[in-house]
């Protein structure tokens, strides 16, 4: 028998400029099943789902629903085909109530049904075309029915801004059900939830499945994937890797498929004995300014001269906040930071820079550069006040140019013109070289590098790796934040794995395999770690 799939996406290819976001990806979703779509960041998961939801049109490939080929050109089209999607960032209107948000775009109007006399007919006509009064009563009844059926408790009259994130997610789910969607797409639904909320969410997924809905669920957290999914499709770097039946596979297999087996440039490093401690972080705790959730929870570690310590983890597990805390960009809630034995916890950003921190920030456009400044101006962004570059508030242009030209030469920064070129017009790799050059040249004791090669091509990546390794040779202490396993393995002397704001493991690179690291990063091993911790406490 030919199996009829709820959704089939065959040979989907999507290019953005020269970047191949999706390369001949096949996805098959069986009716009434939960399909997990797994892959690393930037693997193309969100892109393929956006194609299914009509946000992008594929360059190649076909989409079939219930065996029939369809073309989905925009989200309205998708809704008509009963395809619904919950985006990673909810699409709700903060100041509207839950009820208003659910019916938004699909409002049923007040309409007299029986005993139609002239007045009622006239009203119906006018309301349909002029007044458009909404039948809240009917909508409320329908929604309450859905709430009962799927056990999704929410207060319909509260405003979105007054309810918690997991409630908002329920609103998004009800929204889909209200539109009678039977194919539900969830983009990283658990990224914003706490442990208990995830448990509840997974139950909701099971309920939906039991009611006959077909679900695609994007995640890189393998625990939950294995808990609820029937099938798993793995994609990596835009390519389709494999489809697996969940009960016939293991977490190890999936995680190795996700990250790929190839390990390159592993032990080119010369062995080096780290000494003298430079950075010491003690019990660092940081809160999300809005939800007051602990995004960094009691994190302690140190970095010594001549070693590269890596905070490894999937984006959004608190690594960024740890760096913000150390560099002073965000306030720390609790804990202490020492630099060369000096307590710098309460220093301002400027004072920390002066105390000896160099920082290659994650987001080069947001923090690292001023795009409308020239190369000259950007090379002194955090040291223009130094004696060499200015005196009594007057900028020494000659020295800045001389210094910047050296940097351009040494770090091979290329642009269409000279140092007066606007940084905005340059390629990402060359922009990054300005930052890397600037921060390394400051010759500070501690170099913090956050995702230093993100978005760069292979040549640029290698160049930056070399520069970082050279700093290690020069006996600097280096703190690296990375979510790319290749990078973690080729650079680190020690690996600290972060998951949900905590350090869940510390390893030397030779003690751990990529697959195991991947498991730790996706939280699969957390229970194990907790168990060990508890044992130790006892």
């Amino acid at each position, binding site marked *: 028998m030919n199996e009829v799939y709820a959704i089939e996406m065959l040979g989907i290819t999507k290019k953005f400029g020269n970047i191949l976001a999706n390369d001949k990806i096949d996805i098959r979703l069986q009716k009434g099943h939960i399909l997990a779509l797994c892959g690393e960041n930037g693997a193309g998961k969100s892109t393929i789902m956006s194609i299914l939801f009509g946000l992008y049109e594929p360059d190649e490939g076909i989409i079939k629903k219930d065996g029939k080929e369809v073309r989905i050109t925009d989200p309205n089209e998708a809704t008509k085909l009963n395809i619904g999607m919950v985006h990673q960032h909810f699409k709700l209107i903060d100041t509207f109530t839950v009820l208003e948000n659910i019916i938004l775009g699909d409002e049923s109007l007040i309409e007299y049904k029986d005993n139609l006399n002239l007045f009622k007919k006239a009203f119906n006509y006018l309301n349909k075309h002029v007044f458009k009064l909404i039948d809240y009563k009917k909508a409320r009844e329908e929604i309450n029915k859905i709430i009962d059926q799927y056990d999704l408790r929410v207060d319909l009259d509260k405003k979105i801004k007054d309810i918690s994130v997991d409630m908002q997610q329920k609103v998004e789910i009800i929204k889909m059900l209200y539109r009678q969607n039977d194919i539900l797409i969830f983009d990283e639904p658990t990224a914003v939830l706490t442990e208990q909320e995830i448990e509840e969410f997974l139950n909701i997924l099971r309920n939906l499945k039991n009611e006959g809905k077909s679900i695609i669920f994007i995640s890189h957290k393998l625990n939950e994937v294995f808990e609820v999914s029937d099938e798993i499709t793995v994609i990596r770097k835009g390519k389709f890797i494999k489809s697996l039946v969940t009960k016939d596979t293991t977490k190890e297999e999936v995680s190795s498929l996700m990250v790929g087996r190839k390990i390159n440039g592993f032990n080119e490093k010369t062995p080096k004995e780290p000494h003298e401690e430079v950075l010491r972080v003690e019990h660092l705790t940081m809160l999300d300014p809005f939800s007051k959730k602990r995004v960094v929870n009691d994190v302690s570690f140190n970095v010594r001269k001549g070693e590269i310590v890596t905070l490894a983890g999937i984006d959004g597990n608190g690594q960024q906040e740890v760096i913000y805390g150390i560099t002073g960009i965000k306030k720390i809630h609790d804990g202490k930071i020492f630099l060369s034995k000096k307590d710098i916890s309460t220093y301002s950003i400027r*004072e920390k*820079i002066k105390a000896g921190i160099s920082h290659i920030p994650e987001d080069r456009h947001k923090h690292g*550069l001023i795009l409308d400044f020239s190369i000259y101006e950007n090379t002194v962004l*955090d040291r*223009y*006040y130094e004696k060499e570059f200015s005196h009594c*508030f*007057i900028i020494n242009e000659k020295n800045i140019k001389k210094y910047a030209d050296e940097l351009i030469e040494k770090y091979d920064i290329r642009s269409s013109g000279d140092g007066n070129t606007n940084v905005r017009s340059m390629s990402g790799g060359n922009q990054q070289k300005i930052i890397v050059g600037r921060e390394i040249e400051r010759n500070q004791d501690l170099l913090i590098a956050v995702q230093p090669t993100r978005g760069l091509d292979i040549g640029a990546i290698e160049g930056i790796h070399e520069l970082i390794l050279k700093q290690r040779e020069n006996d600097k202490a280096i703190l690296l934040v990375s979510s790319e396993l290749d990078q973690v393995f080729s650079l680190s002397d020690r690996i600290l794995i972060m998951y949900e704001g905590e350090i869940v493991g510390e390893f030397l690179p030779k003690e751990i395999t990529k697959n195991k690291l991947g498991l730790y990063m996706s939280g699969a091993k957390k229970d194990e770690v907790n168990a060990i911790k508890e044992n130790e406490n006892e």
Partner: protein
Amino acid sequence: MNKVKSFFNKLIKKDGTKTALTSLWCALLGLILGFFILLMINPSEATYGMSSVLGNYLVFTDPADKLNYFGQTLAKTAPLIAMSLSILVSYKAGLFNLGASGQYSVAVLVISFLGVGLNLPWWLVIILAMVAGALYSMISGALKAFFNVNEVISGIMLNWIALYLVNGILSGNPLVWDNAHSEAFVIESGNNAYIPQIGFDKLFAGNDIVGLGMILILVIAIIIFFLFKKTTIGYELKATGLNKDAADYAGMNKVKNILIATAISGALAGLAASLNMQNGFTSWKLSSVPPDIGFLGISSAFLGGLHPLGVIFSSYFIVHITEGGSMITDLGFSPEVASIMTSVIIYLSGFVFFVKEILRRYDLKDELTRLSRDKEETA
């Protein structure tokens, strides 16, 4: 020939040239639209009306009259330059000083009491007026820096507070209020607070309001130019204005920079009041709307391409057509027509950045095709 061509090409590619060109385009567009308005209202006099708007003092036949009114136009340009610089400084630092009118009003209060009432020397009155403007502006600045209150909102509120404060304090106060004309006393020549004319009156056929103020504002414009070009303060302000996260990352002090920017901006608004009032030209009149120079400064700053030296020309242009416009009432156009016409021109001047953006996109396309061609060639 080729050399000339390449020089011209280079000149065109320069950002400054582009801004200047767009400003000219916008001004021209405004003039054309203004002409249409005149045509609609009174076709027979439209051409003549337009020529007097454009000609301003040139329509006089007597050379002495020409000179005199030229001097008047220059004297009225000075305060607008100060106001444009005020807007410009705050804008460069990422703030929008909509409270300039309020700062101007508060400075007027100081000028009236210290200049007319106490008869202090002119330079001291100027300095104190600037201080008053700066302090008043720093109220918005402090609200922004410490409580993240939007400076546009607080600026507008402070405009009204200043307006009624100044109305209330000045009117009827025997020390400063001229009951006969129901306005504050004008600072006449001979008064200590009167800005010296240093011979300009003779140069401009006896015009009695043109004077040192003109030179002063040119010097200030050059100082502001150097502030942004050559000093660390200017560097920080620009960095904060362009990307406040990066400024943060680099350890720049946000609070300090906001306060500095608002203080300079307010001081310049105060200076505008001095240049307008301390030359015997005008004084405070009871009003129910904030002085419009604060808003005119915005147009002028944008028309000047947000360049400290560019605003000298844009301010002159605006005053020139406003003065010229005030003459067409004699041609049977109602005074409102003159205002509408000049407003349209000024309004379109505000399109500078819109036009520039379009040009930029056009340029980008050009660039992209060039790049792809280069790639093919190398491959």
